[in-house]
C-alpha cells in the first residue's frame, strides 16, 4: 500500500459509508414509521368496529327493563366500561386497567386498546375500552433491523470493492511513476560515478586556472546530482536499506562531509566552520548518518546568502547547523517535514531532504529542533 493510500481509503470509505448509512437509516426509519402508522391505523379500524358493536349491544340491553343485565361478551375482544368520573363499571377482563383517559389509542404488552367516549351513558358508561391481542410490532422491528444489518454489510462489501476500483488507476499511475523513477535512478548511477571518479583523477596541476574553475563547477554539479541520487535511492528503497549500526566518530564524519561540501561552499563564498572540540561517538548506520548530515548541510548551503558563514557545532549529545540565509516562516517550519513540499521553488531539489532527515532522526530517536527567522537564518539542532 502506498503512503497516503490508507488515508484516502479511510476518507473515501468514511464518506461513502456515512452517506450511505445516513440514507439507509433515513429509509428504514421512515419505513418503520410508515409501518407503525399503517399498523396503528388498521388496529384502530378494527377496534372502532368492535366499539360500535359493543355500543349497539349496550344500547339494546339498556332498552330492556330487567332485574339483571348480562353484559355483552365477545370472543374477538375484551372490553370495559367506565363512568364519567373514570370509575370502572364493568370489565370482561380484570387486566384492563386504564389510568390515563387522554390517550384514545395505545399498545401495551402486545395488546391494543381503544378508549372511546360514549353518549348517552348506557348503564352510566361514559367511556368504552376495547382490548384486543395485537400483532407484535417488536417482531416487525427485529425483522427490519435484520434487513438493515444485511444491507449495511452489503454496502460495506460494495464500498470496499468500489474504493479498490476508484484507486486502481491511481495505483497504476504511481506504480508506473515508481518504476520509471527507479529505472532512471538506476541509469543515473553509472554516469554519476564515472564523472565523479574521473574528476578526482584529473591532475589539477596540469590544468590552467580557467580549466580548473570549470572543473570545480563540474565537480560541484556532480556532487549535487550525487546527493539527489542518494536521496532518491533512500526514498525509493523505502528505508529498507540494510542497516549496519556501528560506533561512528561524529567529529570525523562531520569533517569529511564538510570537506565534501567545501567546493559548493566556496562557489557561494560561504565560510563553513566546524566547532567540534572533542570526539563523540554515536551508534548508527554510516550511510544513514551521512544522508542526515548531507541533507542538513546541503539545505544550509542552498538557502544561505552569499559570503556568509555556516556554523556546525558538535557538543555532547547535540549537533547544530546554523546558517545565515533566507530563513523560514513559522508556518514553513511547521510543515518542513512534509515530503515533496518546497517553499522556495527557485532552488533545485525535490523537497525530500527534511523528510529523509526526519525519518532517520526518528529511527535513532534523535530530536530535531528548528529555530528560524526570515532573512536572518536557520538553526537546526539535533539532540539525543
Amino acid at each position, binding site marked *: 500500500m502506498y503512503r497516503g493510500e490508507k488515508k484516502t481509503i479511510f476518507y473515501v470509505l468514511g464518506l461513502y459509508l456515512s452517506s450511505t448509512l445516513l440514507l439507509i437509516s433515513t429509509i428504514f426509519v421512515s419505513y418503520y414509521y410508515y409501518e407503525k402508522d399503517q399498523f396503528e391505523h388498521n388496529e384502530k379500524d378494527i377496534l372502532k368496529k368492535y366499539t360500535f358493536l359493543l355500543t349497539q349491544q349496550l344500547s339494546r340491553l339498556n332498552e330492556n327493563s330487567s332485574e339483571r343485565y348480562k*353484559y355483552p361478551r365477545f370472543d374477538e375482544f375484551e372490553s370495559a366500561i367506565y*363512568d364519567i368520573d373514570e*370509575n370502572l363499571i364493568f370489565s370482561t377482563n380484570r387486566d384492563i386497567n386504564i389510568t390515563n383517559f387522554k390517550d384514545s389509542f395505545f399498545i401495551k404488552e402486545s395488546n391494543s386498546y381503544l378508549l372511546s367516549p360514549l353518549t348517552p351513558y348506557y*348503564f352510566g358508561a361514559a367511556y368504552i375500552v376495547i382490548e384486543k391481542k395485537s400483532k407484535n410490532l417488536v417482531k416487525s422491528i427485529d425483522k427490519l433491523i435484520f434487513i438493515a444489518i444485511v444491507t449495511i454489510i452489503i454496502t460495506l462489501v460494495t464500498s470496499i470493492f468500489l474504493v479498490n476500483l476508484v484507486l486502481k488507476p491511481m495505483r497504476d499511475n504511481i506504480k508506473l511513476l515508481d518504476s520509471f523513477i527507479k529505472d532512471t535512478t538506476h541509469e543515473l548511477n553509472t554516469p554519476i560515478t564515472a564523472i565523479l571518479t574521473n574528476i578526482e583523477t584529473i591532475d589539477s596541476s596540469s590544468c590552467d586556472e580557467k580549466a580548473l574553475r570549470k572543473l570545480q563547477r563540474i565537480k560541484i554539479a556532480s556532487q549535487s546530482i550525487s546527493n539527489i541520487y542518494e536521496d532518491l535511492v533512500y526514498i525509493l528503497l523505502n528505508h529498507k536499506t540494510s542497516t549496519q549500526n556501528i560506533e561512528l566518530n561524529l567529529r570525523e564524519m562531520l569533517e569529511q562531509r564538510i570537506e565534501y561540501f567545501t567546493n559548493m561552499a566556496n562557489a557561494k563564498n560561504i565560510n563553513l566552520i566546524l566547532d567540534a572540540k572533542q570526539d563523540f561517538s554515536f551508534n548508527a548506520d554510516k550511510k544513514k548518518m551521512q544522508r542526515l548530515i548531507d541533507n542538513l548541510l546541503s539545505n544550509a548551503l542552498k538557502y544561505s546568502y552569499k559570503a556568509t558563514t555556516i556554523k556546525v557545532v558538535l557538543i555532547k549529545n547535540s549537533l547544530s547547523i546554523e546558517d545565515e540565509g533566507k530563513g523560514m516562516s513559522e508556518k514553513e517550519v511547521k510543515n518542513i517535514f512534509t515530503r515533496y513540499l518546497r517553499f522556495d521553488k527557485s532552488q533545485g531539489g525535490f523537497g525530500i531532504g527534511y523528510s529523509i532527515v526526519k525519518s532517520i532522526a526518528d529511527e535513532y530517536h534523535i530530536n530535531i529542533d528548528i529555530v528560524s527567522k526570515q532573512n536572518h537564518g536557520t538553526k537546526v539542532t539535533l539532540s539525543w
Partner: protein
Amino acid sequence: MVRFLSFFLLFFINTDASEFDKNCFDCHSQDFKFHIIMNKYTLKYSSEKRIKEAMFDYLREPSSEKSVLPLEYIQKFGLKDKSPLDDKTLREMIDIYYKEYNLQSKIY
C-alpha cells in the same frame, strides 16, 4: 354469631326500606316507575356521585331544565313540588334509592 349478624343486617335493610316507603311514597304512588327514572338519570349523569347530586338538586329546587323527563311530559303533568324533607334525610333517601335501583350493580 352468624344468626346474630343476619338478624342485624335484616334489621337495617328493613329499616332502610321502611324509611324510604315512609318518605317517598307520600308523594309517589306505589306504581311509580322508579327504575325508569333511575335509567334516565344514569343515561344523563353517568356516575353515582353526579346522579345523586343531580337528584338532590332537582328535588330541592325542581325545574324543567333540571328534570330528566321530556318537556312534553312536564307540560302535561307539571313539575313536582319541592321535597319537604330536610337535606340530610333527602340525601339519605337518595342513597337508599340509588342503592336499590342503580343499573350498574345489576350488570353481571
